[in-house]
């Protein structure tokens, strides 16, 4: 493919500017006036603004397809010496694609939320936050420098915190919000250091300048503790820390399953489709930096592969429908990082794109089910469901599409992107490509298994929830929820068709489009027959997973307990999520509390701070009691005190002359 030369536009462009700003304005207005004025009409403004910004982003995408690229600064934000950061926008194939994806999903999920959140006391708050989130995500995607990316990065983290803890009166939700926030901070600390380092070595934070100056540090080494560390590796590693936090990769993956405490539309938009993919986006954006260091690529690939495997093993043991999907998100994110780690950044982005649709669809379908089950003691528990096919036909069909898509059944979006990743891994020039491929193939069958486990348990068999629902039967969700489901289902089928690989007669247009800006390793495919073999293998893996799930959960339900009964300790190990929560609890939380309660609380607090503070308080109090007597609360006394003041003033005047 010949590199197309772009027409770079450096002037201010209103439509680019309006794409993120419209949701922001809607969010602020809704937040201020929502409580007392808009009330249950709070969704009008955010939905309208999201729709406009979706149209604008399509226009921008069209212009990018015509060969235009925007890169302009709105104004200079920070200047300190040689350090200068602008609030700028960069629209190129990568960000235009992300932009269209984010706004389309955000718009549909806003519409869905009208039905899902109906009657919630925090209705206006929800719409304000979710619009603010959309704004932050668009700022992240559209930025032309690392600092603005960091700004968006933190803002999406903040919105995620707000929305996970949306039902803050629930203790588990509040805890999950804090957990997500703190775990993300750990990653962001590394990310911040990475930005400092980029500035220190390259003297700029603008992407284009960074890429231009990268050759300078090709051979740079930094001595740390006696080791010479390759600078690009360290840079890539620190930046990847942020990606690990935001995209929930091992070892910072623990927050994402807990984040499912938030409302389901939030899980769909933030914790599946957009925010968690920010890490992948960032790695792709900075792909020229990552490919400079083989170690960094290996790190990305193996962290991705390990997370992928980890999550896929935990997911089949969970009973919370949203948690299962959350683990599946972890696992799919692992796929994306695997793709990045073998040099196929555009394949990773392609998977990101298709995954956004089918995963959002899975979540929204789950939300629809939860909506139907909301009278149950735990509406998320799949053990109460079953046989919902009869009651909720639309949800059933859309969930089926999403599940087939994620399992990699040919013709659906997930097939093309997952297959692309596996093929790229297999043919990658990096030595770890084959290992990654093997892990990916294995996880593909696991993915199909646990996805269909949920699907069969929820929609097939007998309905098990009659007792907890007191005999009431679940019903299909309102139109305002099912229509977005159908529209996203269309995306989950056809978004993959944008990038049909050459072996199947397509042109891999999506990847070619992105490769204009994203670095791509030359991956040569020796012959198509091998590729067909790989394709058949991955489809087979998916089919095996589905059929195993079908046998266990539909044909022979008594097999269900076989595994948990015979391999008790292994099952417990998986059910407890590899004991990561417990390990972190004893490694970090307990020592911190110990330190806080003994050293800080007993010694510092009681002896030094308390005495100082109490002394100040006591002094104030005694003055207060003295002055209290003057403060009688009767207007006339205040008036006479004005007169007394005048007397003093006149007396001074008189005796001065």
């Amino acid at each position, binding site marked *: 493919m010949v590199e197309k030369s772009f027409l770079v536009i450096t002037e201010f462009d209103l439509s680019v500017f309006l794409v993120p700003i419209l949701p922001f304005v809607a969010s602020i207005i809704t937040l201020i006036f929502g409580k007392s004025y808009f009330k249950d009409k709070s969704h009008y403004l955010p939905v309208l603004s999201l729709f406009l910004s979706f149209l604008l982003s399509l226009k921008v995408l069209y212009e990018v397809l015509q060969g235009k690229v925007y890169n302009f600064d709105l104004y200079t934000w920070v200047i300190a010496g040689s350090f200068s950061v602008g609030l700028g926008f960069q629209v190129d194939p990568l960000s235009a694609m992300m932009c269209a994806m984010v706004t389309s999903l955000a718009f549909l999920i806003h519409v869905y939320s009208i039905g899902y959140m109906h009657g919630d006391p925090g209705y206006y708050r929800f719409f304000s936050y979710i619009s603010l989130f959309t704004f932050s995500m668009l700022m992240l995607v559209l930025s032309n420098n690392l600092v603005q990316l960091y700004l968006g990065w933190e803002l999406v983290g903040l919105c995620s915190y707000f929305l996970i803890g949306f039902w803050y009166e629930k203790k588990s939700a509040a805890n999950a919000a804090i957990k997500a926030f703190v775990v993300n901070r750990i990653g962001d600390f590394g990310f911040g250091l990475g930005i400092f380092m980029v500035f220190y070595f390259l003297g700029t934070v603008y992407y284009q300048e960074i890429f231009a100056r990268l050759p300078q540090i090709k051979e740079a080494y930094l001595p740390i503790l006696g080791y010479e560390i390759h600078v690009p590796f360290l840079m890539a590693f620190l930046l990847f820390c942020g990606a690990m936090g935001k995209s929930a990769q091992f070892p910072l993956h623990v927050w994402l399953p807990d984040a499912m405490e938030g409302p389901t539309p939030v899980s769909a938009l933030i914790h599946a489709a957009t925010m968690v993919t920010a890490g992948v986006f960032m790695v792709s954006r900075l792909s020229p930096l990552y490919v400079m260091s083989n170690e960094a690529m290996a790190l990305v690939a193996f962290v991705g592969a390990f997370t992928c495997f980890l999550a896929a093993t935990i997911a089949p043991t969970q009973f919370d429908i949203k948690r299962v999907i959350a683990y599946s998100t972890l696992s799919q994110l692992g796929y994306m990082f695997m793709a990045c780690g073998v040099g196929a950044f555009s394949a990773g982005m392609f998977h990101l794109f298709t995954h956004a649709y089918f995963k959002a669809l899975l979540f929204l379908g789950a939300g629809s089910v939860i909506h139907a089950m909301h009278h149950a003691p735990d509406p998320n528990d799949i053990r109460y469901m079953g046989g919902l096919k009869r009651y909720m036909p639309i949800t059933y069909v859309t969930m089926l599409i999403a599940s087939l898509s994620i399992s990699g059944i040919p013709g659906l979006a997930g097939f093309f992107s997952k297959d692309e990743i596996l093929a790229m891994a297999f043919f990658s020039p990096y030595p770890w490509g084959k290992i990654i491929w093997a892990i990916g193939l294995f996880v593909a069958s696991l993915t199909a298994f646990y996805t269909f486990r949920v699907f069969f348990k929820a929609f097939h068999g007998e309905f098990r929830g009659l007792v907890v629902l007191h005999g009431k039967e679940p019903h299909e969700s309102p139109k305002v929820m099912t229509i977005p489901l159908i529209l996203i289902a269309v995306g989950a089928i056809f978004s993959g068709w944008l990038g049909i690989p050459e072996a199947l007669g397509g042109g891999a247009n999506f990847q070619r489009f992105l490769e204009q800006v994203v670095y791509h390793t030359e991956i040569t495919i020796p012959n198509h027959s091998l590729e067909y073999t790989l394709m058949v293998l991955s489809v087979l893996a998916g089919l095996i997973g589905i059929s195993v799930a079908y046998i266990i959960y539909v044909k022979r339900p008594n097999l269900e307990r076989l595994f948990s009964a015979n391999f008790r300790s292994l099952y417990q190990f998986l059910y407890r999520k590899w004991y990561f929560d417990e390990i972190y609890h004893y490694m970090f939380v307990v020592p911190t509390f110990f330190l806080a309660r003994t050293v800080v609380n007993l010694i510092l607090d009681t002896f030094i701070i308390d005495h100082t503070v109490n002394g100040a308080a006591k002094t104030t109090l005694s003055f207060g009691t003295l*002055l*209290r*007597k*003057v*403060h*009688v*609360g*009767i*207007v*006339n006394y205040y*008036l*006479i005190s004005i*007169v007394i003041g005048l007397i003093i003033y006149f007396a001074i005047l008189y005796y001065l002359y």
Partner: protein
Amino acid sequence: MVSLLFYLYLSIILFLIGLFGFVFRRNLIILLASVEIMMNALIIFFASISHFRHDATGYIIVFFIIAMAAAEAAVGLSLVVGLYKRLKNIYTEELNLFRG
């Protein structure tokens, strides 16, 4: 012969009477009326100065004072009515909600 001083003394006397009422009365309406008396004293003061010094600035200030007095009376009286609506009381000594 009436000179400027006469007017000034009149103004001072009116002002002190207004101040007396302002400080001593306990009816909020009369308090506001006393403020009006003090305003009137000011009007005489400025008008007389202007008259005796052939300078229209004083008259302009009088004009503004009258406007401000109208505004002040409107706000003050609406406060009094609001107080009465909520507390059924307009006597300063009994409105001691702010007692420390």
